[in-house]
């Protein structure tokens, strides 16, 4: 049987933040190399999985990077409108990461 863990149990840091006025960037950072490699292998975080999780088209994802020096998986999305326009509830883009916490990761991968 497949063993799964929540991404929040595996990652040291899961965060989101503006990258300029038009984008929000997400960082998922691991403490240990083997955990990072496991999550990469599991396929839990891919362009496709995050576009499904946030309900956005693939064309809204501008970058998806596996960043080995920091054991990090990082992706960036275009905002629906520039930061701080009236109606934007998250000027800094700092609270957009929450759905990532509960992503299931197959740790047998």
């Amino acid at each position, binding site marked *: 049987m497949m063993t799964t863990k929540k991404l929040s149990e595996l990652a040291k840091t899961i965060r989101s933040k503006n990258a*300029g006025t038009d984008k929000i960037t997400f960082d998922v950072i691991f403490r240990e190399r083997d955990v990072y490699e496991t999550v990469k292998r599991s396929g839990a975080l891919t362009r496709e999985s995050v576009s499904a999780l946030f309900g956005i088209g693939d064309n809204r994802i501008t970058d998806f990077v596996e960043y080995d020096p920091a054991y990090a998986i990082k992706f960036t999305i275009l905002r629906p409108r520039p930061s701080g326009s009236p109606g934007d509830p998250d000027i800094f883009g700092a609270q957009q990461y929450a759905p990532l916490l509960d992503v299931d990761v197959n740790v047998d991968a």
Partner: protein
Amino acid sequence: MTNSLKVICPNGHLGFAPLKTESFQIAVEAGTDYIAADSGSDDIGPVPLGSDTCASPRAWQEHDLEVMLLAARRTGKPMIIGSAGDTGTNSRVDMYVQIIRDLARKHDLAPFRLGWFYSEVDKETVRASMLGGSPVRGLDGRPDLDEAELDATDRIVAMAGVHPFRVLLEEGCDVIIGGRSSDSAIFAAAALHEGFPDAQAYYLGKVLECASFCAEPYGAKETVMGEITPEFVEVTAMHPGQRCTVASVAGHAMYERSNPFHEYVAGGLLDMTDCRYEQVSEKTTRVAGMKFVPAEEFRVKLEGSGRLGERFVGMAGIRDPYTIANVDAVIEWARTQVRERFGDEGWELHYNVFGRNGIMGEMEPLKDKPAHELLIVVQGVAPTREMAEELTITGTRQLFYARLPEVKGTAGGVSFVFDEVMEASPGCRWTLNHTMAVNDPLALFPTHSEIVGSDVLETA
């Protein structure tokens, strides 16, 4: 050329929250060649630039400038500040220059040379470039600038590279106040002025610009020290409880950037793809292998903000589960009343429904599972204060009167914390996130300097 140069940075966004003095003083006592910090950010949204204001109290800015100035003048080391007052507009540069003059008088400092430069760009300069056949190119998926978007803009700043800082350093300035600038350029300018190579100089800036964000455990507003050599950069946490580790330093390269390998500055690209990280002592990490690729065409980034109108804010709560299930119909009722009063155009009304998807909007995976109570934040934007206030109070109070067919509570459909609307900052919008080609890297950044202190008056 000297073999190494030390630069300290006490705050990643000077003035946004006060710097912590203990680690700063430790760094000053350890010995540094430059003291530098960035004071700007576009994180704060378009309002400060659109309305030419600061995002933080002046007292916090004065605090940090005072702590840094006293240390710099006591040790005789240059002090460099970029993006004065959050936005780096001309009025914010003038404000910081005056704060430095006032602090010099207050502390009776020996004479020193104060330099500054401006970054604001006149709309007609941008229009001339655009109409003269040099498109002002959009960044991050934006189209090239057109005249309608330029006309909707109230204020533009250009992002300076190292060039105006270097001019002022060559003039012998002891304290420099910069207009809007690339974070990394503030530090790179010092290293380039002292003869260090581009790649290491820009990396030094990149790693230092957010101060202790490149250290662990997490703790902002603490000082870090960077030391540059012709081959590598070392970065050291100055707070007794923090360390710069391979993970924290490599991790910082991706902070607030869409790509952890590439950092664009005016005049080129810092390439961190082949960076090598090494823990050389408990608190210090060494980085080598960075590259700098000069740009073929010199393009300057422009930030512009346009004022949409005056803004008011209202709030309403909902507890009835039937009303919660029909909150969109409630909002539509209120919107319809606004349309009947003000017509279909010439105003904006925004509803954020907290407890459902107030923070994430359409991206909220749980938007079909609202909580047992909701808070609706209403924002109205209109050309005049009077209209914005009436618009917002209509859009808020009419939530109370929404006509839902099955509602049991017919005495009022929402709760009010206060039955009024509050005046907010003006509604603004980022209109420019573009680049413009310039022939002279200094063309948009006029520099000035003067001798300050001991009642000497001389302007260069």
